């Protein structure tokens, strides 16, 4: 287990892509949550800001998930097969959410009000698509979290290996647990928290900014509650993760950093240092994802599939690493350009 080989590097790349998906794609889902929960005198402006923030970038942000999937099936094929078999149901439901969220958002953006009609049948249809977009934005992160929870809980054994091969035992029980649901909920509130914090930076109207500041502060509180709930359930239900999370190597330092980032985000929001809050919130969520990864290292799917055991032949790993470098040379300048074009000028204080 010593030293970093190509397998560990690819696993690290998968973790990086997953982190990017959570920070960027996750916030787009969070935007949908606030679209659903829009209320108050500036309800319409809230929705407009969310649509404006997500519009140009959600598809690019979504591709991180595809990168994760592709790297997984190329470099850790047995892991991909295991997840696809045992998590068939939540993954299929998540895909329905992904399809509905993306299409409904696109239908509303390109054929809704602001494109010639403010009232009448067009506006009604558009409100309808808005509801589909928003509901799918709530359901999808929960399902993603449930899948992550099932992996963390070490519940995804090879089908038929556990002896009792019933349908429920193999295809439902591993993920439909209180711990799994708590991770689903945690994912949802984290995404909503990220979105609210990002939107404080993107809002130009001070009143609108205050709306999202309050939402971000409430979400931060809910994150604390749900996170401790999930941790408690993990101690009770899934000993291996609980141990890794509380006593594993570097775990304490990581937890202290996560807590510090969380407090920094709240403090920055409180004193209206929105750019700092965005940085702290992103750091907090990143550390949570990395904490999970560290807790189950060297396992990709506990209790039996480790990075080394599940890795594809070395030649595939090495070629993929080169492909990642080459792809990154095209991708990162493009992404920076995208964000510079759309996220620069209306940055807040």
């Amino acid at each position, binding site marked *: 287990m010593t030293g970093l080989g190509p397998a560990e590097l690819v696993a690290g790349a998968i973790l990086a892509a997953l982190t990017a998906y959570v920070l960027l794609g996750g916030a787009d889902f969070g935007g949908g949550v606030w679209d659903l929960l829009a209320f108050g005198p500036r309800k319409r402006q809230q929705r407009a800001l969310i649509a404006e923030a997500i519009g140009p970038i959600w598809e690019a942000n979504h591709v991180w998930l595809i990168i994760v999937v592709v790297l997984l099936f190329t470099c850790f094929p047995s892991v991909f097969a295991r997840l696809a078999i045992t998590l068939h149901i939540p993954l299929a439901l998540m895909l329905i959410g992904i*399809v509905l969220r993306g299409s409904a958002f696109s239908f509303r953006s390109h*054929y809704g009000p602001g494109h010639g009609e403010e009232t009448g049948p067009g506006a009604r249809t558009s409100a309808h698509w808005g509801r589909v977009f928003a509901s799918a934005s709530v359901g999808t992160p929960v399902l993603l979290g449930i899948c992550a929870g099932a992996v963390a809980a070490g519940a995804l054994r090879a089908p038929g290996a556990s002896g009792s091969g019933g349908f429920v035992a193999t295809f439902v029980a591993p993920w439909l647990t209180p711990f799994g649901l708590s991770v689903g909920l945690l994912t949802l509130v984290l995404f909503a928290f990220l979105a609210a914090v990002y939107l404080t930076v993107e809002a130009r109207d001070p009143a609108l900014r205050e709306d999202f500041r309050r939402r971000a502060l409430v979400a931060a509180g809910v994150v604390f509650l749900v996170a401790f709930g999930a941790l408690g359930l993990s101690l009770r239900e899934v000993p291996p993760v609980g141990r890794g999370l509380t006593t594993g190597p570097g775990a304490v330092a990581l937890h202290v950093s996560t807590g510090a980032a969380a407090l920094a985000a709240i403090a920055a929001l409180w004193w209206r240092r929105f750019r700092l809050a965005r940085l702290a919130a992103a750091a907090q969520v990143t550390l949570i994802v990395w904490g999970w990864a560290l807790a189950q290292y060297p396992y990709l799917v506990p209790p039996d599939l480790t990075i080394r055991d599940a890795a594809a032949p070395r030649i595939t790993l090495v070629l993929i690493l080169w492909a990642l470098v080459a792809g990154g040379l095209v991708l990162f300048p493009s992404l920076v350009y995208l964000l510079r074009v759309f996220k620069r000028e209306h940055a807040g204080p």
Partner: protein
Amino acid sequence: MPDLLAARSQMAMSLGFHIIFAMVGIGMPLLMVMAERRWQRTGDRVYLELAHRWGKGTAILFAVGAVSGTVLSFELGLLWPTFMEHAGPIIGMPFSLEGFAFFTEAVFLGVYLYGWERISRRAHLAAGWAVAVSGMLSALFVVIANAWMNAPTGFRWVDGRAVDIDPIAAMMTAAAPTQVVHMILAAYASTGLVVAGIHAGGLLRQPRNGFHRRALAVALLVGAPAAVLQPLVGDQSARFVARSQPVKLAALEAHFPTQRGAPLHIGGWPDEAAGETRWAIEIPYGLSLLAFEDPHAEVKGLLDFPRGDWPPVAIVHLAFQVMVALGSFMALVSLVALWQMWRRRDLTRHRWLLRALVLTAPMGFICTEAGWVVTEVGRQPWIIQGVMRTAQAVTPMPGLVVPFLVFTALYVGLGLVVAWLLYQQVARSPKVAEEDAA
């Protein structure tokens, strides 16, 4: 419904749905940048309006393509985990490269759609080109992966698993060149001709509307050359199949007994039980000539292969006939239209040509679906030709009819919505008097 059939149906339905949006994601960006370029060169604002409208159409079609493509990347595992477990390390490379191409396409489509007021004209047009090129590259990489399933290389299969894996050799599969070119041309031909057909219809109703006139000209420039070249590439592809997948060739030609100087069957119904094809028009020596450039060449028939290795002959043969018939018609109409354009004739004077273009509008997509059936159903019962059977690859999860029905309902609904939105957009085409245009 047996699980294997449900899984195959779900995969076929998902691919059949996605392929339309993927093709439009390759073809439409080219239309939109060509219109924008004409606007920048001539200052004619009708072209700008066209670029805007085509961009808007591209936006929703690309979004549906992106999410349905995501579904497919998961379905590879949800339905065929054993396939992916073995094929992933061999053929994951082009999928990864496709991921980056798709990323680039998504980034620059965002820049293109939302950046009209934010970046310079040149940067905007360049973003459009980046979308068009990366869309084409996505197709290149994905079709390479599919070609490998037809002509697998880059590994040795020993005791039920792959050894000596060489992902680069796998990408160099001999099936790739013709299959890739055939697919990319299909995207340009289908997209170009469907748009051409829509505006030809507009011109039949309003012959003086300069909006439709300009749209038709740009669409034909994208669609018609591709449609003319397509039969030539298709012919190359069939010849390759004749050598690498003789069972598939026999099935698509409904060719039962092995024969020297084999005839070409046009139409007809293959009777699998009797081992013969009835009611077909036979062109003597046609098949030997087309497949092997020699009228007396021996063409292996289905009867020379074990029954268990046959694909469903009737489906494959029928799909092949549909593809060839409609594809030939598209090529013919395109050739005439190009000839008229070359001679600088006013296409709107030829109402018969406009009617023919309306008729060809949906044909590209029908052809592509048929062609996809030929290559995918024609490979059955194998998921990796000669190496792994589809039945060995399917997930152990029972009750697969449920996801099949759910995703079918989802896609049917989505397809209807997209069709309705695009219909609304076309119905609101502006009227541009000829005088302004000139």
